[in-house]
């Protein structure tokens, strides 16, 4: 059984210079409550692994604006004017990764793989520093696993066993990150009393450590 905690309690799991994964794609399927608590603290120096850095003063984007992020491993920063500014001023390190490779690298960690071979990035700057491996006379880049100290993700539905389900395009990285972090915190829009049916679970509860009630059921 996973533990249900408040956003404030969730902050205790964070410390300076951790690597944190945050789910979401722009403003869709993004955990927000813990981020709002986190920016109240003096914590900083985080390495952020996420699809993008959102918008400047919205959810994940706030972490950038408040200077909490030392390095961002993401596929896109163009939607957050502050990330772009800090990057151009050399005040934040940005490691841009093809979105599919980012997804595979997170999964590789969660699935205990040493890496995956992708054709993506061959012949581009992305090759730099990466091992090239030939399979059947075709070149691939070896993409290695990405692991985090904490994964903070969104779910539309969570039962009290930590099983997760999703509505619409909110799955994005929320489905992958819980497998690849030491501590997994889920903000569930709907925290439901009855267990999800075994057939409708998208992320099994064994990957989840803590649940936060997003309050859509009025329970909070």
């Amino acid at each position, binding site marked *: 059984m996973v533990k249900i905690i408040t956003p404030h309690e969730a902050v205790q799991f964070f410390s300076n210079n951790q690597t944190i994964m945050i789910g979401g794609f722009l403003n869709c399927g993004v955990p927000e409550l813990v981020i709002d608590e986190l920016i109240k603290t003096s914590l900083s120096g985080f390495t952020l692994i996420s699809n993008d850095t959102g918008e400047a003063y919205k959810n994940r984007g706030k972490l950038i604006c408040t200077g909490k992020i030392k390095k961002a491993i993401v596929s896109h920063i163009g939607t957050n004017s502050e990330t772009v500014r800090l990057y151009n001023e050399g005040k934040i390190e940005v490691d841009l990764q*093809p*979105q599919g490779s980012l997804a595979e690298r997170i999964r590789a960690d969660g699935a205990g793989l040493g890496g995956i071979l992708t054709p993506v990035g061959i012949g*581009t700057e992305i090759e730099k520093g990466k091992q090239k491996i030939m399979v059947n006379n075709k070149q691939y880049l070896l993409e290695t696993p990405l692991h985090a100290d904490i994964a903070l993700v969104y779910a539309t539905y969570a039962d009290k066993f930590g099983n997760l389900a999703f509505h*619409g395009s909110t799955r994005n990285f929320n489905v992958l990150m819980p497998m690849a972090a030491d501590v997994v915190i889920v903000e569930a829009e709907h925290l439901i009393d009855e267990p999800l049916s075994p057939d409708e679970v998208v992320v099994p509860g064994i990957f989840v450590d803590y649940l936060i009630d997003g309050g859509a059921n009025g329970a909070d």
Partner: protein
Amino acid sequence: MELTKEQTHELIARRVAQEFCDGDVVTLGIGLPTKAVSYLPENINIIVQSENGVLGVGTYQDETTSDVHITNAGGVGVTINPGGCCVDSLMSFAMMRGGHIDVTVLGALQVDAEGNLANWCIPGKFTPGMGGAMDLVVGTKRLIVAMEHTAKGAPKILKKCTLPLTAAHKVNMIITEKAVFEILPRGLVLREISPYSSLEDIRLTTDADFEVELR
């Protein structure tokens, strides 16, 4: 005769729409490429994939279909057509990389006669990131670049891209308001001249050499 920006985009989008076959699974870049959906020929239905995890993207949402949890890759609320579904980022890119997308249409900063594409970075100036573009471009069965022929008068179809590449040797076709090119192993081939252009005009505004083999 001068086309407005809007007319230019409509012209390109209309021509792009001719390239789809019924049942194609298609991924469209934000902006101009997405407009092609509005000009689909009759009896041609396509399945639009959005990299953030939607298959079967329908129209933009209105008051009756509003749902904050369903967006396209640009973050705009969309509907899902009957038979569509939602997937996670891993599956979304597995579809692309695995060759399950029939046609991809993207914009470009530069494209060249070798089929190289640059659309994610202007060093020192503008580095939004590649997002899903690199995966898309590598895995798709057919890659069409749809863009204005020039940028502030400067050619965008080059002998060789100078900006960081999105992918090497992947572009199959270029559609602009002036022309349609195919990119074959032997190089760039001009296939169509738009009614709003001419061979001379195309030669003047295209940096790359090309053969002329009109269809």
